[in-house]
């Protein structure tokens, strides 16, 4: 059973009457527990693919099934629910709410959750402890280092226990030490059974995953599973 299934997805933008095709006939299937990297040069359509995967944009044509639900044609209300319950985002630029404490940032998805189960604050606290920030609960993003901010975003992406974690260039704004630490966090999450999709242009980052899909000019150029030796193993 595929967790994520994209069949001949096309996406085009119309700008001043000129149609730009960003994605053409993208077909890919991802199973639960997969660790997938999507690589490609800038402008290849990675971000658009991620926007569609993350239900932030709708495909122009094609079929997108997430967790058994056809989400390609849902309305805003249902799409928002899918984003809230099934997807956890990690961004290159962190995208934390400024001026709001780490704890409250982690709890943001709960604000929009249909029914918040259990003690949200306790869960947020536990997740921050899990990423090693138990001493930074009441710091605002401005008071945190880049690496710490990225770990807050990871904690935030996990709060509603999503089916997929979508990470868009998660190491792009980090130095190598923090980058490695972030990647280790992802590697550990995979070991716990999470499905992670990494979008990156850095081959070294991509090699953490067990499968690399490369995108070129809006189409899948290659899709291969890495052998055990090729993969960057968690330390």
């Amino acid at each position: 059973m595929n967790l994520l299934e994209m069949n001949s997805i096309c996406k085009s933008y119309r700008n001043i009457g000129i149609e730009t095709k960003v994605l053409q006939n993208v077909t890919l299937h991802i199973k639960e527990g997969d660790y997938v990297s999507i690589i490609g040069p800038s402008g290849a359509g990675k971000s658009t693919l991620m926007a569609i995967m993350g239900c932030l944009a709708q495909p122009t044509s094609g079929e997108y099934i997430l967790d058994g639900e056809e989400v390609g044609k849902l309305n805003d209300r249902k799409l928002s629910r899918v984003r809230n319950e099934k997807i956890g985002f990690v961004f290159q630029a962190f995208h934390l709410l400024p001026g709001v404490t780490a704890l409250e940032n982690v709890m943001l998805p709960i604000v929009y959750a249909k029914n918040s189960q259990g003690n949200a604050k306790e869960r947020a606290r536990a997740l921050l402890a899990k990423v090693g920030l138990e001493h930074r609960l009441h710091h605002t993003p401005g008071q945190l280092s880049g690496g710490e901010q990225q770990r807050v975003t990871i904690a935030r992406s996990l709060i509603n226990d999503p089916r997929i974690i979508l990470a868009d260039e998660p190491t792009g704004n980090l130095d190598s030490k923090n980058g490695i630490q972030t990647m280790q966090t992802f590697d550990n999450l995979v070991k716990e059974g999470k499905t992670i999709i990494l979008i990156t242009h850095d081959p070294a980052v991509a090699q953490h995953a067990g499968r690399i899909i490369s995108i070129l000019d809006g189409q899948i150029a290659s899709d291969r599973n890495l052998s055990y030796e090729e993969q960057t193993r968690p330390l």
Partner: protein
Amino acid sequence: MRIFKNLGQALRGLRLNRGNTMLMTLGVMIGIASLTVIVAIGDGIKIKVLDRITSLGFGPESFSVMAGAGRLFFARSQNTTSMTLEDAEDLLALPTVRLVVPRQRKSIQLINKKEFTSTRVYGVTPDWQLARGWEMKDGEFLSETDLDRSKRVIVLGATPAKKLFKDKDPVGKMVRVQNNFYEVIGLLEEKGLTESGYDPDDRALIPLTTSMTRLTHQTYLHSIKVVALKASQVPETMEAVRQILRQNHNLSVLAEDDFRFITPEGIMQRVTESEQALNRMLILVSTVSLLVGGIVIMNILLVSIRERVREIGIRRCFGARRSDITIQFLFESILVSLLGGIMGVALGLGVSFGLERLNIIPTHITMEPFILSFVFCSLIGLIFGIHPARKAAFLSPEESIRSQ
């Protein structure tokens, strides 16, 4: 509840964008403050006018019926003979009527030895004093005995008393009217000139019976003053009075009234016409200032949304619906309006109080501006918040998350 969560997010949004919040609050505050001041001034002026009219002899619950039709205000028709003491008695029987004062009036000379003055002499009943609420400075007012026995006694207003007796105490002295001598039994408290130049102290009062037999030689009345139990009962009382008088005077359905009413409202209408025009202008000005406040909110919210595109994108990524974003921004604008409203009312009350204290302009502080501003502010927040809130909600989450 989702809506409370949105409210919480709105409060947070306001806190995090303090500068914008302050500017928006200021915009509404000034609008509401001016509205509050204007309402206070309007009420203050109205009360002052009412006071003035009360000093003319009209409380809010009293009115006069003059004999004779026509439009002349205080002038009396010389030859309408239909209004009688029986009318007055019938009117007193009405359930909403507290007091009835039948009156005759004649302008005539009062003489004390070599001093003389012309004044308005009224024939009234002892209830006149109650109806007018006019205190005595010295002596007594007319009594029932004076009335029953048609005694030749007189109560003087301050103006004729001064002219006839200079600084001496007039009580107990005699005054001649035509060929009759009257004993001065009382002196009315001085009221002073009204602002329109009318002198309420230029009068003298004698018993109605004395007036009928010795002064006017008429048995009909010139006017009747009616005091209702409550001010709110004046309209129904007037209607009842009209019915009784028409019936008593045998007027056919087609005939016009042979009497006319003078009400405090009637006078006030004349006095306040210019003030109403002023009020209307002030209301216009304050509406404009409220509108400006609303537009300030709208513009600042629009700018604020540009600054907060990323925040909106982040919220959308983590499950905020369009409606959540709309509601959050609407809450922000309503909260700002209400905050501005409260501060505006406070400022306005302060200014009104100051104006009154410094004798610049009369003001009267009521609950109205509180309620008005609460309603207005909610409306302003709602109306001027809708556009920015919708705009924020319809940003594409994909694009907003990427904007820097």
